[in-house]
């Protein structure tokens, strides 16, 4: 199996990035079946429709940079380099899962590519990312921290405190709002009285940008600028990626609360289609290539599922290991 680091390098090309987005979609689509067959427990949160944000971020950051991300973390994990086996294995509670089967869908991690265990508490990843950035600053290396969170999370106290502190400390950190218009079953306008969340940066005299989250090239451009700004010691940025999730909030959610027609409109701007269309237009890909790519990925994901389902759960001693350093 290729390592996460090698998988990360594959994002260096446009085709590699398209491929990763297609893979993410395929992996996430397989989860419902795994769930129906009783392999997945608790809650899972799909990011389909939002793949360009994760893959865009992952293709800009270095593996030595660190990302904190939410329970809606499959896409980020796969983008950063975790294998389909690592993600699906975790969701199915197998020892080959990226957290050894101990975390589940909401807690994916891979230290080799800078993914801290994903955060199941809204807003919790922001202060931690600030600490990561602070460590980089104190160590005087040029790593950056990047934290991904949703529109709804901009109403939690940790958002406010962290942005203010990051600004005062001029931390090398990028705050990325994936504004998918909903926090659970609540449309953003019902929870937040402003429409451009990036404007909240003004309260902290922070650099801000709004970006089309469906267009991976736009995402890359915006993240790159923020990362360069941070690496150069100029401090944090707040980036709002306007995007949409095609599924419900979590496994059990039929998303009946959507504004009528909204989903269809957004599906017209599927980030996978946009990226593929661009490659086709450039002459770097044919429709046939694309179909082949999809089917290759389908096979790869199917194999990953086979591997996962044939693999073991964590052993009983895992339960008592890594609880603390002092008390084994």
């Amino acid at each position: 199996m290729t390592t996460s680091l090698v998988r990360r390098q594959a994002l260096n090309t446009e085709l590699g990035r398209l491929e990763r987005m297609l893979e993410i979609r395929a992996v996430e689509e397989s989860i419902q079946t795994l769930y129906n067959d009783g392999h997945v427990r608790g809650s899972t949160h799909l990011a389909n429709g939002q793949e360009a944000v994760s893959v865009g971020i992952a293709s800009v950051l270095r593996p030595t940079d660190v990302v904190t991300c939410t329970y809606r973390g499959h896409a980020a994990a796969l983008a950063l380099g975790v294998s389909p086996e690592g993600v699906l294995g975790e969701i199915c509670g197998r020892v080959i899962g990226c957290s050894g089967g101990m975390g589940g869908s909401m807690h994916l991690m891979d230290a080799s590519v800078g993914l801290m265990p994903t955060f199941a508490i809204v807003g919790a990843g922001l202060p931690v990312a600030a600490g990561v950035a602070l460590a980089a600053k104190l160590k005087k290396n040029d790593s950056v921290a990047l934290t991904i969170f949703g529109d709804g999370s901009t109403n939690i106290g940790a958002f406010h405190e962290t942005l203010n502190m990051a600004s005062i400390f001029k931390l090398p950190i990028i705050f990325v709002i994936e504004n998918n218009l909903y926090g659970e079953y609540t449309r953003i306008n019902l929870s937040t009285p402003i429409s451009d969340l990036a404007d909240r940066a003004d309260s902290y005299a922070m650099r801000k940008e709004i970006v089309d989250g469906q267009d991976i090239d736009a995402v890359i451009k915006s993240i790159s600028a923020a990362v360069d700004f941070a690496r150069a010691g100029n401090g944090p940025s707040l980036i709002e990626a306007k995007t949409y999730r095609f599924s419900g909030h979590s496994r059990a959610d039929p998303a009946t609360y959507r504004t009528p027609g909204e989903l269809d409109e957004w599906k017209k701007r599927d980030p996978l289609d946009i990226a593929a269309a661009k490659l086709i237009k450039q002459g770097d890909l044919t429709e046939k290539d694309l179909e082949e790519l999809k089917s290759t990925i389908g096979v790869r994901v199917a194999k990953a599922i086979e591997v996962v389902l044939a693999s073991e759960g964590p052993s009983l001693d895992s339960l008592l290991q890594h609880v603390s350093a002092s008390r084994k």
Partner: protein
Amino acid sequence: MTVMRTRQAVIQALSDELESDPTVFLMGEDIGSGGPFKATEGLIEKFGEERVIDTPISEMAFLGAGVGAAAMGMRPVVEMMFIEFIGVALDQLTTQGAFYRYLSRGAYEVPLTIRAAAGAGLGFGCQHSQILDQWFRGNAGISLVIPSSPQSMYGLLRSAIRSNDPVVVLEHKALYGERGEVVTGEAGIIPIGKANVVSQGTDVTIVAIGSTVHTARAAMESQSEWSAEIIDLQTLIPWDKETVMKSVAKTGRLVVVEESSYSGGWGTEISSEVVSQLWGQLKAPPHRITSPDAPIPYAQELEKRYLPSPEYVVSQITALLKTGKCPAPWWEGFKS
């Protein structure tokens, strides 16, 4: 008497209180849609948006708003969705709301109910599966209940809402789907602070709460070597000392079955108090059967093993009765 699921008992209790008392209202994230466990389903349709209030994701703000509204004579029922979420807002309950009565010499009361899903067993991982009763201990301004059945959910939740102090109601998520008969109306109300003797027995008193009531019962029913008086505490803070003492005075033995970790578990309080009150009357040391000292694992087999199972309870109690000593927990053998 109606058969309903525990989550329906939540809805019924809320509905009955909303109906009978105009100062009652609900507040929380996505409670209008029923929430992840459908435990508030249908209420917004019935009572409207003024009494079933969806909030932004701002636990500090809306828990605190519950405190403030309660101090003004309302009876807010605030949902925390998962009890872990109160970790970003605990101050408002424990350091603010719980102390107003005292600081205001009774001028401000805080009749606030906090509902939250709690407990392990469904694969929600370590940040969505704890009980966390310890966060509410040692604060005499707060009560805490953990219902074990549709009936006790109904009865305790209604009492919580009627209480003139903050009450935390931990709704075990593994029990939401369980069915049982429920007496509704005044007759179905269960007072806070009263335990329920689930079964009469002679050899040992088992003190349990929430999910472990079922574990204890299954343990007892699976064997015939010993008979247990199972006490469902129902209220953990303040717990019913009288009922527990009466039973242990009779059986001479106390076993506490707890869902959380051994260290810091609530059972220490039961055990400690029983010994100080019933010194000289015990036939064996009080014994605690708990989960190990570890976060809650996701993988199904491990999560199952993490929780005390009926078989484990049987083996522990049988050993206690046979040896007169506290048997070692299963994880002792695994320690490095």
